[in-house]
């Protein structure tokens, strides 16, 4: 596995995000996640700057690194120019690259996110695409959202979209040659490898639980068994 701190330090976000934490706790005071979850960005930052390999491995295996919302409120307020949000991004990447994400309930959710977002990008060229954003999975979309879904083409035509149409415009069809470029970028820069790593660990986990791929995806998308909240 190599020294985890050294691997973290290869990540540009880690180098930009970690200067010298003075443990003042300002990041925790401003953090929306710290109010909701049992989460403390000050402790995360202090742990990684300690270079304690065992403690870092615990972070990579645990739920806490997945509590951050990456709003970056901490970046504005840190008096020593640390960026706990960037440190979190480096920790999450290493957790996925090493397969340690599979040890935590929140980490395992990465499979559902990867399948949804990366397939939207590769298949349609958008992170969010209306034909895959379903009211059933998003009841907060409300009755209006249900009406939009049931009348998707007509609603978008009415408000001026170019849904799946040629040429520029709102929700146009991204040409195939551009989607191919995105796929080539994914292959060359590590996104495809990340997807394969997450898939491999997740399918193993699903098998161990006696679930099909679809049952496992639904399980991690909808269910939390552990108490994560304050």
């Amino acid at each position, binding site marked *: 596995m190599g020294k985890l701190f050294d691997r973290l330090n290869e990540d540009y976000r880690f180098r*930009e995000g970690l200067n010298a934490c003075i443990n003042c706790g300002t990041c925790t005071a401003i953090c929306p996640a710290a*109010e*909701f979850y049992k989460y403390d960005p000050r402790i995360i930052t202090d742990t990684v700057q300690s270079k304690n390999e065992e403690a870092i491995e615990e972070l990579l295996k645990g739920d806490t690194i997945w509590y*951050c*919302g990456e*709003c*970056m*409120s901490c*970046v*504005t307020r840190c008096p020593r120019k640390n960026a706990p949000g960037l440190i979190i991004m480096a920790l999450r990447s290493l957790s*996925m690259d090493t397969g340690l994400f599979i040890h935590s309930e*929140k980490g395992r959710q*990465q499979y559902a*996110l*990867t399948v949804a*977002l*990366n397939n939207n*990008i590769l298949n349609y*060229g*958008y*992170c*969010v*695409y209306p034909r895959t*954003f379903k009211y059933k999975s998003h009841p*907060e*979309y*409300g*009755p*209006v*959202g249900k009406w939009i879904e049931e009348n998707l083409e007509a*609603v*978008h035509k*009415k*408000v*001026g*979209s170019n849904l799946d149409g*040629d040429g*520029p*415009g*709102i*929700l*146009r069809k*991204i*040409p195939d040659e*551009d989607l191919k*470029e*995105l796929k*080539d*970028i*994914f*292959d*060359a*820069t*590590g*996104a495809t490898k*990340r997807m394969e790593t997450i898939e491999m660990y997740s399918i193993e986990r699903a098998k161990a639980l006696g679930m099909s791929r679809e049952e496992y995806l639904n399980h*991690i*998308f909808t*269910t939390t068994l552990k108490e994560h*909240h304050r």
Partner: protein
Amino acid sequence: MNINGKKKIWSEYQKEIPEDHYFYVRSCIRQNFFPASEKLFLEIVRERLSLDFFETEHHTTCGGIAYHSDTIPQETVMTIVARQFALMTEAGYKNYVASCITSFGLYTEILDTWHHFPELESKIRDYLWKTTKREFQKPEYLAHASDVVYKLRNKIASQAKYKLVNKDTGEPLKVVEHIGCHYSKMFPSKGVGGAEYPYVLTGMIEAWGGEIVDYPERRHCCGFGFRQYLVQANRGYSISNTHKKFESMAPFKPDMIITNCPGCPYFLDRWQYVIKEMEGKTYGENGEGIPVFTYEEVAGLVLGYDPWYLGMQMHQTAVEPLLDKIGIKYNKEEKYLL
């Protein structure tokens, strides 16, 4: 509150914004949920103000939502962004304007990282060449679309049909603004008014006749949190943060909310509906919600566009209470007419 003191500090966070000749890129979330806002933005700049804003069908997502959900590596998102810059370069533009705050924050972060680590920029240029045979110049100017509307706010005001004023009392409407975390929390100098004294939306509201409400949780996140909304099991995080903002703004009795981020208007709109369903609680007058708008929608209303042309039938929280306060004419029967 010492308004003069705040205005002095705000003035230190101004930035020069070019008016014309932009390469325009769209927002994934806004195209889904507030599509007419992008339509109106281009209509205002191109047709009303005769400015040059170019769009190509070959641009794609910047990958920002996936990046901040940690499903793609930094080098992947940087190469996708480099490809967008290459499209700008090929089209002959130097000013780049993003419709999305997540994109704007990401572009700002990437340009800053390349500045500090030029070897990484070289690596990304290699990736881009190997995968697409494209090359790029970095933008000379990077704007968010709200920066452009802020710059043009007085020209829009000069064509206004309505003001953000209560037609019965003659008082300015009380407006809550929400600029979105990634507009300026990471790089305060890149946003009008910075992160602490946000002025990009405030400037619009003042120019169009309204009055901004300063409330304790003005700068608090809307609650998107990427994975904290996108995974159903995590949505308690999202609604709890939105709830905190509404509880904080409620005593000030705002008439409306204006936003410039893609996700924020969705969450501030939809979670109001959910809070009403869960707790029976509403934050506006007469058991209604507080209407939530994009800045283009507000510009469209003051310019006299029909609310349904502006896509306001796609909101869950009804906008009619605000339309009635201003005295905007609309046809109730046509709201859901297709």
